[in-house]
């Protein structure tokens, strides 16, 4: 209603408008990145603040980790089986079915395991996290924490970070194992590849380096997804174009899931290019 609006000092010349528009957006993006950077820093520092909230960590491990097991299991089984069939189809053309174990396990460990786990956890837990924190922000629960001199990072955000950093690599390991089992089922069970050659192919080709790459990826993805999802929720009121109230939370949650998935895919390429 009655609001005092200050008119701009003077109308800028029309030619300057595109630059003003551009500069304004660049400034906003820089500010936003800066806020996200401060958020990441505070969340990581909060992990080491006392008193440590052990019960909250367990709750989050249960939600992010244990709660995602079923979806990880089915995704892994089906993608492993598809890999088995698809791999068999391609390799069979060259009479190289013996390479199936190697192909399936390397693809899963270095690529599909980390990436599909991160995408599944983003969809399942990341979105919930973003919405939860966003609602706490707009209903002033986070302000209330600060007013009670309780650090919202230590109390609320950092346990989620720690839980994601612990559970995503473990879920990735589960994904890899279940996926390889799925590949074995399809290749050996259905297509009749020799079991011994599947297993020995796998044993000979998977090196420590490959496993390390998979682990590094899963840790980076965990950090990315929890940072983006929790951070967007935390900053919901500072995101341009998000609107207000319940709608702002729903928009920002969608945005967080998209941003987090895209970042995971981009970092997947970067890490593969650098570390392979």
């Amino acid at each position: 209603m009655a609001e005092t609006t200050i008119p701009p000092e003077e109308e800028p010349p029309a030619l300057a408008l595109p630059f003003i528009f551009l500069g304004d957006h660049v400034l906003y993006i820089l500010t936003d990145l800066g806020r996200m950077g401060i958020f990441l820093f505070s969340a990581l520092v909060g992990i080491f603040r006392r008193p440590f909230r052990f019960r909250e960590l367990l709750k989050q491990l249960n939600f992010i980790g244990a709660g995602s097991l079923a979806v990880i299991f089915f995704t892994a089984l089906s993608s492993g089986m598809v890999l088995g069939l698809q791999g068999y189809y391609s390799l069979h053309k060259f009479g190289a079915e013996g390479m199936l174990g190697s192909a399936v396990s390397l693809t899963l460990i270095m690529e599909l395991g980390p990436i599909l786990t991160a995408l599944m956890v983003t969809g399942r837990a990341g979105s919930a996290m973003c919405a939860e924190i966003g609602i706490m922000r707009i209903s002033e629960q986070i302000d209330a924490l600060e007013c009670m001199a309780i650090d919202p990072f230590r109390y609320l955000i950092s346990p989620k970070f720690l839980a994601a950093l612990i559970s995503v690599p473990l879920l990735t390991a589960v994904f890899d194992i279940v996926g390889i089992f799925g590949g074995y089922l399809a290749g050996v069970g259905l297509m009749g590849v020799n079991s011994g050659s599947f297993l020995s192919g796998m044993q000979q080709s998977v090196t420590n380096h490959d496993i390390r790459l998979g682990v590094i990826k899963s840790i980076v993805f965990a950090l990315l997804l929890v940072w983006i999802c929790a951070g967007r929720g935390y900053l919901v009121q500072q995101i341009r174009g998000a609107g207000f109230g319940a709608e702002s939370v729903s928009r920002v949650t969608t945005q967080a899931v998209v941003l987090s998935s895209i970042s995971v895919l981009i970092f997947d390429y970067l890490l593969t290019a650098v570390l392979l």
Partner: protein
Amino acid sequence: MTPSTPEKAPDIAIEFDRVSKSFGQRNKKHRVLNDISFTIPRGLTTVIAGGSGQGKSVTLKLILGLLYPDSGRVLVDGINVPSLNKRELLKLRTRFGVLFQGSALFDSLTVFENIALPLRERTNMSEDEIRSRVMATLDQLELSGHEDKFPAQLSGGMKKRVGLARALQLEPEIVLFDEPTTGLDPVMTREIYQLFDSMQKQLGYTAVIVSHDIPGVFDIADQIILLNKGEVDVFTDVNEIIHSTKPYIREFAEMTMGDLFTRPEKEKCH
């Protein structure tokens, strides 16, 4: 961090000194507070009144250091809040109790856990001490028997009382209330204000109540601060408002407390 000799007289709890605050980007700038100054006396009840969107909540957030002014000083016991670093700010906030506009109860915690939270997080009290203390507060605020409910299961008035209980746990020197009666019916509103008044008299804290709940809230006010279009007017009595000659104050008074004027000639239809 607290200087032993505050630069202001000891009977002033909070002072705004030529504070301005705007929001928005350069060409859509919206000035909420325009160079305003006022003081809030210690141990009394001050009401900040004004229409919706006039910057009442912004004023409270400036006091708490949740927002920063563009210019001017916000002094709490002579300490300039915007100049504090994060740790000093947290320390300062321990002296405040805050009841937020929407109660801001933690919706995943029960009533008991909500009220116990500041004690669990900020003190070394044993779980037994916390329990007896919280139960006593619940009793005092007529909330016994509701301790295991979640905020979503409470009525509006009960939420406010739980919010008050939580705000008072750490024995604050200053309690800030943001529109504590929004969404309550008139009877409940009166009850809540009477409760605030008796708690304030009993505990002696400095109360700052933001409200557009006029004239009801004036019954318990020792001082009234009226925010209007970025300007501020201070009154110590409702009658000063009623007899003010400034046109926008008259307008505000007639709009919000028309019944006080008891003018039969001013009918709805004419």
